[in-house]
Structure formats: C-alpha cells, structure tokens
C-alpha cells in the first residue's frame, strides 16, 4: 500500500530547498556561536575550582598550545592517548625538513581513504576504494610539541589532559 513511495514523490522545489537550507545553517551556526560565547564564564569558574583543588599544573592542559614540531604528527583512531596511532610525516625537498602543515587534513584523508577506521587497532592496508566516513577530528598538542589528531567532539583534548593545538 505504498501510495507515497519515497522514490516516486516529487522533491522539495529547488529554490525553496536552497533557501531553507541556508536559513537553517544560519540559525544553527548563530545559535551554536551564542552557546560557545556563553560558555567561557562557566569554563573559567570550573577552571578556577580545579586550580584551587589540584594546583596550577592542571590548568596547563586545559589551554591552547601551539604545535612547535611540525616534522611529524600522529593520527589516533580512538580518543585515548594510549590507543592506536599512526605517525604521519611529509618529506621535504632534499636538504630541507618536511613539515606537516595541516595534520587534521592529512588524518581526515587517511580516514576518507579507508586507511584509518575509528576504533581500529592498525592501519587497514586492504581498504576498499571510495569515500569512507570521516569522524569529527580534534587537533591536540602532544607532549613533544607535535600535533596529535583524535576522533571526537570539541573538548576531546581537554578530556585527554592535552592542550588543544593553537590555530597559529
């Protein structure tokens, strides 16, 4: 009794679809931005409490830190510092050092190609062709100053007690 079979139903008119999508994106982005702006006060209060309770060392991991060593980076498959990670490096010209300019992009490409899968314990050498899912990725600064990319939502670095990589 499929009177309204989804594949035979007309699509949402194009002009309307584009306008509705744009409106939704603007509302969602605006709302998410307001929520992010509202957070710092709460974060600061929480951070202050941690400082009082556990000392200044705890703050260091809660802030941003620049990536100082761009010769290599790590792509993790789980949001766990002891989980599996593959090291990435971009070779430079002879006589120069390579530099991983955007670790997140490279790790995303590894996920997209199927070489990395969330939760996997190794690189998958027999990956199939095509686009594979790319999880949300967060770039943290590893203890040696290199970038470490973890799957997970915003805040993953803090949960792992690592500073988030500063943009610049």
């Amino acid at each position, binding site marked *: 009794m499929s009177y309204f079979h989804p594949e035979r139903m007309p699509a949402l008119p194009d002009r309307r679809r584009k306008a509705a999508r744009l409106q939704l994106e603007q509302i969602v982005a605006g709302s*998410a931005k307001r929520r992010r702006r509202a957070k710092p006060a709460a974060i600061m209060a929480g951070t202050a409490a941690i400082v009082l309770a556990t000392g200044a060392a705890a703050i260091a991991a809660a802030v941003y830190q620049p990536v100082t060593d761009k010769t290599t980076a790590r792509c993790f498959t789980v949001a766990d510092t002891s989980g599996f990670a593959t090291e990435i490096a971009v070779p430079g010209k002879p006589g120069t050092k390579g530099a991983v300019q955007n670790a997140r992009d490279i790790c995303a490409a590894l996920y997209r190609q199927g070489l990395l899968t969330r939760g996997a314990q190794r690189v998958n050498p027999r990956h199939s062709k095509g686009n594979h*899912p790319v999880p949300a990725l967060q770039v943290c600064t590893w203890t040696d100053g290199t970038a470490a990319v973890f799957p997970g939502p915003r805040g993953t670095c803090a949960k792992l007690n690592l500073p988030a990589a500063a943009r610049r």
Partner: protein
Amino acid sequence: MGIDWGSASDQELWSQATNELAGEAFGELFERHANRVYAHCFSRTGSWSMAEDLTSVVFLEAWRRRTEVRFSGDCALPWLLGVANNATRNAQRSLRRYSLLLAKLPPPEAEADFAADAAERVDQERLAQHLLCSMGGLRRAEQEVLALCDWAGLSYAEAAVAMGVPEGTVRSRLFRARQHLRDLADDSQARCMHLNRSPAGLLAGGTA
C-alpha cells in the same frame, strides 16, 4: 577543512552540534533528508505548500530538540519523521510558532513553476486528501504508524524510533490499524465520496 560531509554518518554530523561546524553539519543533514521529510509531511497533510513550510519546521524543531535525537543505526531519518509527525499533528500551531522565519523564505512554488508536474501534483493532493479522509476514523497513533510503515517505507525498528515506542508495539499497532482501515472501508467510501477520486481510481490511472 578536511571534513568530508558527504561520507560522514548522521551521527557524526549531529556530533558537530556544539562546535563551529554545526551550521554546515545541519545543512548536510537537511540536504540528505529534506525530500523524505517533505514527502512525509505531504502524506500527513495532503498539501504540497503546507509540506514545504512544515519541512523547514521539522528541521528547526530538530535543532531545538537536538539533545533528544535517537538514531536508528547511524540514521536520523526515522527520528526526523517522528518530529514531522508532531509538527503535522498540530500543523497550524507549528506554522504559527515559526511564522516569522517562514515568512523570510520564498513562498511555496506556484503550479506554473513546475507545469509539467502540475497535473500529477494535483492528483497526488487529491489522493492524499482522500486517504487522509479514509483514515479519519482511525486513532491518531494508528494513522501515524500507517504513514510511517506503509507510506514512508520505514521498517518496524525504524518506526519504533520515530514513534518512541517498542518495536512490538509498532507491529501490533500496525496490524490493528490495517484491520481497522479495512473495517471502515465501506463507511469511508461513503464519507469521502465528495473528494471525487478514490485511491483505487488514481492507481488505475497510474499516478500514484
């Protein structure tokens, strides 16, 4: 950025709701599911223009209720159709709530804009109105389970997510709804005669 939205699952897109990529992620969810939501809203209202507005309402409501989302596997569509059920149940109230935002969108397309499909669309509106009239004697939950399973093509498990009930309840409710619809067939035939064309007539004409 390196995120490939096209290959990200619904769940991954939803996980962006708290960061600066939320707008893009919800845009992709809209692109992915808008047509199915549109078709479902149409089947529940019998009006293309109302379905256009309600499609926007469903996604705005989904954003407002984003923390309540339930996935079927990785897919958000069943839950979105559940939101659509709520929106269409109180269509006028839903449209009123978002009237200011809806007013900023282009008005529903005039029939001339899709002249080639106009006749088919009119037929589909008649069919939908006839079916809605035929289902008038059913309980609301029975109407919704028929719309989700028989029209939108959801599985029992997916319909369970959409309706927020156990799968067993979907099965028994659907069984009762179909039986109830058959029982009411004669009555609805007479009651809905004023709508001119019956579903059977339309099906014979090859438009459904």
